[in-house]
């Protein structure tokens, strides 16, 4: 394995180095009180640099060589990396806000998010289970801290503790899964595991299968799929809003990237050996959060349940690992990337709106969204579009995501599951449109909300992407094809 001594190529082959450097810079700059205003700029510069590097490697990604035999920045990894970095850029824009700037440890806050992002990037590009583990831990531990960042807030503390305890438990299960897989296949390398899988395509050894199932459990936990989703609503609600936005977008993207990568490239049995399990998990993940969310009164918690419900849709890619398009190209990853794009963008818009509203009213209950159309018609219009996208109204990215997911399901012949999915989409309308109802159809007084330029930028970019994906999905999806 050639270890490149060329510093330049280490910087430009992947965004890890650049991001790490900027993370450390942020950490230290954060110590200097006078430099506080510069933190955001530095963070954005770093992320943009990382993003540019990612995009520069776009074309190379089709013929990517592994780095130290540990990471492979193939097309799938690059796509998800780009999505995650772009998401974090948007999240950083959301943090351009008075109350955030005034907070303690701001430098660490930004640095943690960037470090967590590095964990995420490792997760979506891993080639070795060791890197997977390290990536998961980097991301998770950073998330525990982010969840508990508001130290004086009991809810934040509680969220952090719950997340930490359950996350560690899941890590234990993940490790047991890895160990059993290693014990049977004799390697941590994805390719060799895949070779072992193919060897025992029909009847895998029981311990190997147990290992796979434990990995399935661990990742179901990480992506908050039912019945391993319990942590998500509580943690999302308790954590500081920016952290929640981060967790429900970047962390989820990374978790799905890793989940899919592992099961797609290592455990892709020809038989449908783990399909039933996945189907049950998907069905539960669609049913439980959607129904539960109907009775929620907190917008943040609705978003948490919505995130879980979307995980149900996203998990459908696991049932599509064998699907190819007319050119013989596998489409599952592109479907997932498309879905994630729509989900992430809509989510960030929703969180940005929540941030503004909460700042104005001090509450994240739905109550505080009442009469928002009066207080800022543009904000409510943007939020409406985001909600429509989440609910899967056509012409938005959300619809196209769901469309391709269900399309994949039906190609696999899962008619019942797709009907469950659409029925639960109907249920989901109830809580998504409750927000719209509150904004437009209920009256309440309140101060006008003013959008600062970075929010406007965020909203416009977000809406453009939502409609671009919604109206020209094929162009976008072709980009994602491996």
């Amino acid at each position, binding site marked *: 394995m050639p270890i490149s001594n060329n510093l330049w190529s280490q910087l430009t082959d992947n965004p890890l180095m650049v991001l790490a450097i900027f993370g450390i810079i942020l950490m230290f700059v954060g110590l200097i009180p006078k430099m506080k205003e510069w933190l955001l700029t530095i963070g954005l510069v770093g992320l943009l640099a990382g993003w540019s590097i990612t995009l520069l490697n776009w074309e190379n990604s089709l013929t990517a060589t592994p780095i130290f035999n540990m990471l492979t920045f193939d097309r799938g990894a690059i796509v998800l990396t780009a999505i995650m970095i772009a998401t974090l850029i948007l999240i950083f824009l959301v943090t351009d806000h008075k109350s955030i700037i005034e907070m303690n440890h701001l430098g660490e806050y930004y640095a943690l998010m960037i470090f967590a992002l590095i964990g995420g990037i490792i997760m979506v590009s891993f080639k070795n289970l060791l890197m997977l583990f390290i990536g998961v831990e980097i991301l998770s531990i950073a998330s525990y801290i982010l969840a508990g960042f508001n130290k004086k807030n009991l809810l934040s503390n509680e969220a952090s503790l719950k997340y930490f305890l359950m996350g560690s438990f899941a890590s234990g299960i993940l490790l047991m899964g890895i160990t059993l897989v290693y014990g049977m296949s004799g390697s941590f390398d994805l390719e060799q595991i895949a070779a072992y899988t193919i060897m025992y395509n029909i009847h895998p050894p029981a311990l190997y299968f147990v290992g796979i199932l434990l990995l399935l*459990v661990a990742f179901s936990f990480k992506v908050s799929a039912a019945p391993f989703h319990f942590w998500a609503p509580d943690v999302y609600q308790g954590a500081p809003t920016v952290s929640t936005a981060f967790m429900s977008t970047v962390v989820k993207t990374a978790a799905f990237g890793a989940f899919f990568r592992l099961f797609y490239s290592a455990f892709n049995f020809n038989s449908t050996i*783990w399909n039933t399990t996945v189907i049950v998990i998907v069905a539960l993940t669609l049913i439980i959060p959607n129904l*539960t969310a*109907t009775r929620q009164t907190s917008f943040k918690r609705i978003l948490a349940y919505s995130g879980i419900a979307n995980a149900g849709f996203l998990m459908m890619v696991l049932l599509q690992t064998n699907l190819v398009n007319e050119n013989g190209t596998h489409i599952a990853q592109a479907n997932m990337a498309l879905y994630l794009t729509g989900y992430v963008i809509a989510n960030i818009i929703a969180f940005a709106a929540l941030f503004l509203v909460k700042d104005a009213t001090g509450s994240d209950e739905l109550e505080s969204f009442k009469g928002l159309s009066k207080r800022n018609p543009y904000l409510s219009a943007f939020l409406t579009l985001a909600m429509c996208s989440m609910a899967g109204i056509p012409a938005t990215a959300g619809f196209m995501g769901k469309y391709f997911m269900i399309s994949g399901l039906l190609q696999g012949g899962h008619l019942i599951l797709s009907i469950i999915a659409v029925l639960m989409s109907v249920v989901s309308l*109830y809580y998504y449109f409750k927000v719209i109802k509150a904004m437009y159809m209920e009256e309440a007084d309140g101060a006008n909300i003013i959008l600062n330029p970075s929010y406007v930028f965020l909203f416009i970019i977000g809406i453009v992407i939502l409609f671009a994906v919604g109206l020209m999905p094929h162009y976008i999806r072709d980009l994602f094809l491996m």
Partner: protein
Amino acid sequence: MNTILALLIIAPVVGFLINGLYGHKLSKTLAAIIGSSAILISFICTILLFKSVPENGVRIQFFNILKLEAFNLDAAFLIDHLSLMMMSIITGIGFLIHLYSAGYMQHDKGMAKFFAYLNLFIFSMILLVAGSSYTLMFFGWEGVGLCSYLLIGFWFTNGDYANAAKKAFVMNRIGDLGFLMGMFLFLQNFGSLDYSVLKAGHLQISTGMATAITLLLFVGAMGKSAQIPLYTWLPDAMAGPTPVSALIHAATMVTAGIYMIVRSNAIFALAPFTMHFVATIGLATALFAGTIALFQNDIKKVLAYSTVSQLGFMFLGLGVGAFTSGMFHLMTHAFFKALLFLGAGSVIHAMSGEQSIAKMGGLRKQIPLTFWTFTIGVFAIIGIPFTSGFVSKDEILNATYAFNPMYFYLAAFGAVLTIFYMLRLWYLTFFGNFRGGKEQMDHLHESPLNMTLPLMVLAVLSIVGGFIQLPELFHGHPYLIEYLKPVVSNMVAEHSGEGHETFEWALFGGTIVVLIFMFAWTFKLFGKKESVSEEYTGLAGVLEKKYYVDEIYSFLFVKPLEHISVLLSKVVDNKIVDGMVFLTGKFVTWSGTTLRYIQNGQTGFYFLMMSIAIVVMLAYNLLFKL
């Protein structure tokens, strides 16, 4: 010829449009002139057509209304002897009634509207009788129904009148449903609704199908011509202005059913069962309505039941196969019944709107012209020999006897009933002493000339109308039968021989005897009556209450329908169907509430659930998947 026909049809439309759209700007007189002259034009055109029409009729097509793959509808008119006869009755009597209305309605502010409706009615009626296909007939059929609705409800601020109008329309619709079904069946069998397929002998159809079609068509006739069981709307329709009763509910519209059956005689001829049915219904209606008329006190109600009864006679005629006789009675009835109604209108006019004969009496001195013309009408309807009513009814009775003697006796009894109630009406109205109030007494006056002139014309027609077809007994000649021969083929056996002549003489003699007896008897009963009771008891009470048919209908159909409607709406729709939807929603929120509780905030519980899930998952996979 095309032009004349076009003018004939367009004139009422133009009248309708002018009066309807600009009536509020016209003076009453002008509105009346426009309305009447439109019909006069039509009448003149009809007369002109008489000359030029060929024996077998002529089909005149203006344009194509609808052309689809298997359906074709032309705006085409069939002008033959039958439709000409009908059109002349319609436009002729229609014109007279327009003239009469100009006087009768002169105090009403809705004059222009009234004439607009009347013109529209005449147009619809022309469409009905002159159209060359059942579809066009149906156009007119429903059109006259609409006009009837509008005119019955002319004084719409009175809720009862509006109800009567609605009742008339709905009852007609029930009949129309049958007609429509008949048309569909006809269309299925012949591929067209044009009369051109009705050539006798060309109809390739089984008796069963012919029976079905004709029965359905007859249902339509029942509705329009007020036969049992769909007759109850007609007495209620008297809510409209009296000229309307004369025109629509006596002379023209209600005879549409007769016309339709005569027009379809070729196919009716193939369905003996239907013919029998028609005769039976007709006879039943004649007797039934006749008995009800015996004890009615409202002058227009008596006439209305009399109309129903006479229509029954016409159907009896049709049913026994004497199509021409039916048409003949239609014509004579149009004369004398229009006369009676207009006369009644004149009486009511004189009585300042009072319609109850219990309040009248001795009017012959105050309004002599009305009295004499009314008397002619009464004589015609009760069949004083050589009046038009005598001739036409005689013909029907003759044909009935040939058909079935039992029917004849019943029909004769019906004729006797007619004599009784008409004479009762006559005596109570014009003889004895005045029973009304003082104010009415002072106000009594003869109607103006434009009202009495139509009375006189119709009186003349009522007398001489019968002469076109005097029985052979009196050396008459069946002009009408010959005239209608190209269109109508009667099914009555040709009478000849001694026996028949004897029967006719017997009938004639019997009629005279009965008439003399009835005159005397009814004079004894009603001639000098000082007061007329408003309430009757016993059998008379049942008759006065019209056998409670309206109540029975209400109980059997109207109320159940309303109850079902409420039941379906309140219970089935709201509670069950929408209840399912509601329950689905409730179920969702209920399960939301329930599922919420598993998210109970206890980390320990979460761990437990996750572990159980792992156990279940592993157990399932290890046991069933490996």
